[in-house]
C-alpha cells in the first residue's frame, strides 16, 4: 500500500486530503470554558447546600410536601441537565480544532451532536495575515484573534480565542513560504523569496 495514502488509521481530521500533513494544530484558549466552570462551581454549591443546610428543613414548615417534592425534583432535573451540558461543552471544546497543514488552514467546528462544519483556506489564497491581542486578559493569558484576508475578495476570516496567536501567525507565514516554494519548483520556476 502506498504510504502516502490516507486511511482511517492515520487520518487526523475529517476531510484530510491524500498527502496532506498536519504541521500544527490547537484548540481555542481555555478562557472560552470559564462561564461553564463558573456554572459548575455554582452547581456544586447548590448540591452541598441542599445536602447539609438546615434551611431546607425549615422550608418544609412553610410549604406542603407535594410542593417540596416538586422543588426537589426540579432541582435534580436541572442539575442533571447541567451536568450533561457541561461535559458536552468540554467534549466539543476538544473537537473544535484549528489546524495548519501543508496545503491549507482548517477550522473544524464539530460537536458530538447535530453540528459538523469545516472552514478551510488554501495557503495560496492567503493575501494578508494579521494577529490581534488587545486588552489585559488577552495579554496575560496569551490569546487573541487571527485574521486572514483572502485574495479572492471574500470577507476576511477571523479565528477567535486562539492561544499563542503570534506563534500561529509565524507558522502560517512559514508554511505558506514553503508551500509556494514547492509549487514553484514543481512548475520548474526558480525559488523566490515570498513575504506575506
Amino acid at each position: 500500500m502506498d504510504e502516502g495514502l490516507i486511511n482511517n488509521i492515520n487520518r487526523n481530521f475529517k476531510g484530510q486530503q491524500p498527502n496532506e500533513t498536519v504541521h500544527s494544530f490547537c484548540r481555542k484558549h481555555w478562557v472560552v470554558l470559564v462561564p461553564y466552570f463558573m456554572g459548575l462551581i455554582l452547581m456544586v454549591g447548590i448540591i452541598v447546600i441542599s445536602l447539609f443546610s438546615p434551611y431546607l428543613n425549615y422550608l418544609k414548615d412553610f410549604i406542603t410536601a407535594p410542593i417540596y417534592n416538586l422543588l426537589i425534583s426540579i432541582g435534580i432535573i436541572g442539575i442533571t441537565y447541567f451536568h450533561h451540558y457541561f461535559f458536552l461543552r468540554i467534549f466539543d471544546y476538544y473537537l473544535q480544532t484549528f489546524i495548519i497543514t501543508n496545503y491549507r488552514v482548517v477550522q473544524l467546528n464539530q460537536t458530538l451532536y447535530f453540528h459538523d462544519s469545516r472552514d478551510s483556506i488554501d495557503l495560496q489564497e492567503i493575501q494578508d495575515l494579521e494577529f490581534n491581542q488587545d486588552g489585559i486578559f488577552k495579554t496575560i493569558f496569551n490569546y487573541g484573534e487571527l485574521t486572514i484576508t483572502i485574495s479572492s475578495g471574500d470577507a476576511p476570516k477571523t479565528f477567535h480565542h486562539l492561544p499563542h496567536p503570534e506563534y500561529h501567525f509565524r507558522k502560517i507565514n512559514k508554511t505558506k513560504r514553503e508551500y509556494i516554494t514547492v509549487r514553484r519548483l514543481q512548475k520548474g520556476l526558480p525559488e523566490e523569496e515570498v513575504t506575506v
Partner: protein
Amino acid sequence: MTTWILFTVLHTVSIGFALLTLWRLYRYIRRYRFDESKYTLLFGFVHLKWIALSYFALTGFWVLVSFLVLTVQ
C-alpha cells in the same frame, strides 16, 4: 411514588445519554487522532480520556447523591 418514578426515568435516560455520548466521542477520536502536547491539551495537561472518565464516574455519582437527597428529605 411519583418522585421515585421520575427519579428512575430521569437517571435511566441520563446514564443512557452518557453512554451514547462516550460511544460517539470514542468512535470519533479513534478514527481521527492528533499527537497531543502541553500546547494542545486543556490547561496544558488535561487529557480527553480523563474528562471522559470523570463524566462517566460523575454521572454514576450524581445518581447516588440525588438518591441520598430524596432519601434524607
